[in-house]
């Protein structure tokens, strides 16, 4: 029996957050646009906290500007500060694109940043610089919605009617730079011409060397984004993305670009689906190298299937990744104990239902969850592995459930930017970490546990059915 629960309707207080604020997702998405910088219209703290969160995950310097609103602007409006901020950012960074993300404060004040930007552009005779206002009030969604909304706003800003061309659009959710590189590699191997957005594979994982640049090289060029309206199709890994935030949906509605909405290519089924889609679009055979990679993944799945069957993972984080990881677990015989997301409007529960039907074990599905709720559910269902970002550290620290870091943000381990889990290769890397965490837990405790179980006073076996 699977239990479905939408939690925030029961409790008021959010205790140990499983999600973050809307403009944070916007900052990430903007890093995938070439020569761009994010400017948060709000008080100084917002941009500093977002820098901190991102710096710790990506292990990279990340500059985010702020309009540094104060009491005066809160009363009289923030236009003058925003103009000054634009002046200074342009002077110091020389960007080609500035994305202005609104904070709770700016939204509540009711600043009309669209109008501010128009006036500014006219007054300053701005040329060769795109300033994109993006509405991201943090009380209207999580960083997940902020990510999608920003992509949608960026596409809406650039896309215009163009001639049809052979390229495809590939729109990715908040995944690691390593994941983006892997998806690009598969697209290249399948011989496709494509525009991937947002491409922060270089900007958020910069190699050492050369002269330091204030804005990291890389990202999708604006000219390519403008051409997305003429593509053959859009592949969007936005299975859980609501229509109102969906960039792919926008391109379909406005420009008639067919939308293929896929789950992230994580695990065998997920990657098969992606590669099959690429084969259909490219009308090319799947190259031997990809089939080899698939074979290695299958081999690992076979070798480790019995160990993986012992897993009762608690999976938490952003809905797109949570859904894909749940699928990977299920195809390896691991029935998730808990599947949870802090986001409320992803429809995650409905999407999971068909996958979980028929399982012998119960799965608790939580939307709009915080970690106190997740922890309660994990304990109740005897979860034995915690899969997700650093917010789940208490599951390990307090409940002794071994943790496997994946997703965003990861700030208590190095290499958040390098965590690879897509494609056959990434799935295999993830699965090995998954299996090895189970093995480590088993080898470090089974002697003691068996002893306690079989030689204890009661002498009664506690073995679970």
């Amino acid at each position, binding site marked *: 029996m699977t239990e479905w629960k939408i939690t*925030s309707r029961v409790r*008021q*207080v*959010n*205790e*140990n*957050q499983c*999600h*973050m*604020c809307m403009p*944070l997702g916007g900052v990430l998405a903007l890093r995938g646009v070439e020569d761009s910088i994010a*400017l948060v219209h709000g*008080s*100084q*703290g*917002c941009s*500093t*906290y*977002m*820098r*901190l*969160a991102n*710096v710790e995950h990506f*292990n*990279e*310097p990340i*500059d*985010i*500007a*702020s309009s*540094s*609103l*104060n*009491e005066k*602007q*809160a009363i009289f409006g923030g236009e003058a500060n925003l103009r*000054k*901020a*634009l002046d*200074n950012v*342009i*002077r*110091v*960074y*020389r960007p080609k694109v500035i994305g202005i993300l609104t*904070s*709770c*404060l700016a939204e*509540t*004040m009711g600043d009309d940043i669209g109008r501010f930007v128009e006036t500014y552009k006219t007054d300053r005779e701005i040329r060769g610089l795109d300033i994109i206002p993006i509405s991201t*009030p*943090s*009380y209207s969604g999580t960083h997940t919605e902020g990510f999608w909304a920003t992509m949608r706003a960026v596409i809406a800003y650039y896309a215009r009617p163009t001639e049809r061309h052979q390229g495809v659009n590939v729109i990715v959710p908040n995944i690691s730079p390593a994941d983006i590189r892997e998806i690009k590699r598969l697209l290249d191997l399948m011989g496709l011409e494509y525009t991937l957005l947002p491409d922060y594979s270089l900007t958020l994982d910069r190699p*050492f*060397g050369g002269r*330091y*640049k*204030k*804005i990291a090289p890389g990202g999708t060029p604006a000219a390519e984004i403008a051409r997305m309206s003429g593509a053959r199709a859009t592949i969007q890994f936005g299975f859980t993305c609501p229509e109102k935030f969906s960039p792919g949906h926008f391109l379909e509605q406005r420009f008639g670009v067919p939308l293929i909405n896929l789950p992230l290519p994580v695990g065998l089924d997920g990657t098969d689906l992606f590669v099959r889609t690429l084969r259909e679009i490219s009308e090319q055979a799947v190259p031997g190298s990809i089939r080899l990679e698939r074979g290695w993944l299958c081999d690992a799945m076979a070798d480790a299937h019995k160990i993986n069957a012992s897993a009762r993972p608690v999976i938490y984080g952003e809905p797109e990744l949570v859904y894909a990881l749940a699928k990977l677990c299920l195809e390896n015989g691991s029935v998730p104990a808990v599947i949870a997301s802090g986001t409320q409007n992803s429809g995650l529960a409905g999407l999971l239902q068909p996958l979980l039907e028929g399982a012998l074990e119960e799965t608790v599905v939580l939307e709009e969850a915080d970690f106190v709720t997740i922890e309660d559910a994990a304990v109740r269902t005897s979860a034995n592995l915690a899969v997700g970002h650093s*917010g789940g550290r208490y599951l390990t620290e307090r409940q002794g459930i071994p943790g496997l870091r994946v997703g965003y943000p990861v700030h208590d381990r190095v290499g958040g930017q390098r965590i690879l889990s897509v494609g056959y290769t990434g799935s295999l890397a993830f699965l090995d970490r998954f299996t090895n965490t189970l093995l480590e837990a088993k080898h470090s405790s089974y002697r003691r546990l068996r002893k306690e179980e079989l030689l204890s006073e009661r002498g009664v076996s506690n073995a679970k059915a």
Partner: protein
Amino acid sequence: MPAEPTACIDERQFSIMTTGKNKSRIHCADDSLAGAVSQRACVYSGARVVLNPVTDAVHLVHGPIGCAAYTWDIRGSLSSGSEMFRQSFSTDLKERDVVFGGEAKLIACIDEAVEKYNPPAIFVYATCVVGLIGDDIVAVCKEASQRHGIDVIPVESSGFISGNKIVGYRAAGEALLTLIRPKDGAVVEKTRKINFLGEYNLGGEKWLVERYLREMGIEINVAFTGDSTVAALKRAPGACLNLVQCSGSMHWVAMSLEKEYGIPYIDVNFFGAENTAESLRKIARFYGDEEIVHRTEALIEREMERVRPVIEKYRKKLAGKRAAIYVGGAFKALAIIRQMQELGMEVMFTGTQTGKPEDYEQIGTIVSEGTVVIDDANPAEIEKFLLEKDVDMMAGGVKERFLAHKLGVGFVDHNHDRKDGLAGFDGAIRFAREVYATTCSPVWERVKQDPFEEAQE
């Protein structure tokens, strides 16, 4: 406009000073300049870092989710008892609440927290939105306090009040004074114990200093706020002396405690061996007890004998290396400058997020001529001076760490989220080792080489 990116914003020129060159005063304690990518946080952040180590209180952030999520378990403060302070409570305001007001949700959240945990106190932090929509958190807290019979204390920390964290320190100070003020004219009995202000027990630093003091025959009453409890804080008026370590966060509280309860205060500093010895002597002198003075000198002699050869070992490797220091507060900057100098290093540039004119005057007296001093720096300025001054290592917080690394500069974290203690004699050893490990790391030689350069030509 120049075609190349630049580090210079005209309006910032008075916030950057080179010692010895100009006699004019550095501009500081102003609001951050819009668009300058300041390293500063906000008023809420200032209040949060000061109050958060109160271990058994519920810290409830009234606002949308971000403010709480970004500060959940952010400090490296350790607790000998309750771990309640590591839980992150938020009213998680949604659009509805912002439109119709968030008071009802705040009341419900307080009630839930009390029902579930029965805490001795709840701090309710106001965030930007809450200040703007005008929720009366003072009234809500007062009412909840009476209803539940515990301290429910509002913290006026709306982020937009100022661009400077110091305003948040003050808000936290006011909340603490409210908490410890005896109710109904009750009197807290005086003792021979001391309060330790501006000590947050990062990596157990309070415990370390406590060991020294115990050996000297002195007891700590309560620390503000490392490893403190609500009950212990309420005993604060009973101390005979306040030690002030981080003056930025606690100087005003010390002055208020002197005014209200007649407790004198002295400045101390446990970062660096010399500073630690000096501070212990100061405390011993206050007691004017020969036995205490004697025990203090014995302790210092023993510890210095242990520290000296270690520092000397690292000094041999570090002498003449060039350092940069950019941290939140002036107290920390001064302490690190002195330690770097003890290690034979040259401080090329320094600065703070929240320094006051008198702080910068003091910094000016201890650095050598030609040192660049920056108030409220930004990444462009930090990059410029790391390169211009050919710096070997930097001390700062997380936001500066990866910029330094990208430029091939070593880095030591001296931030409120660090996990290792850097205070006392043990801390001095750890600090020296860390400075050495990063400044003299073999990594820098390697990553700056380009073995394929010739092939390219």
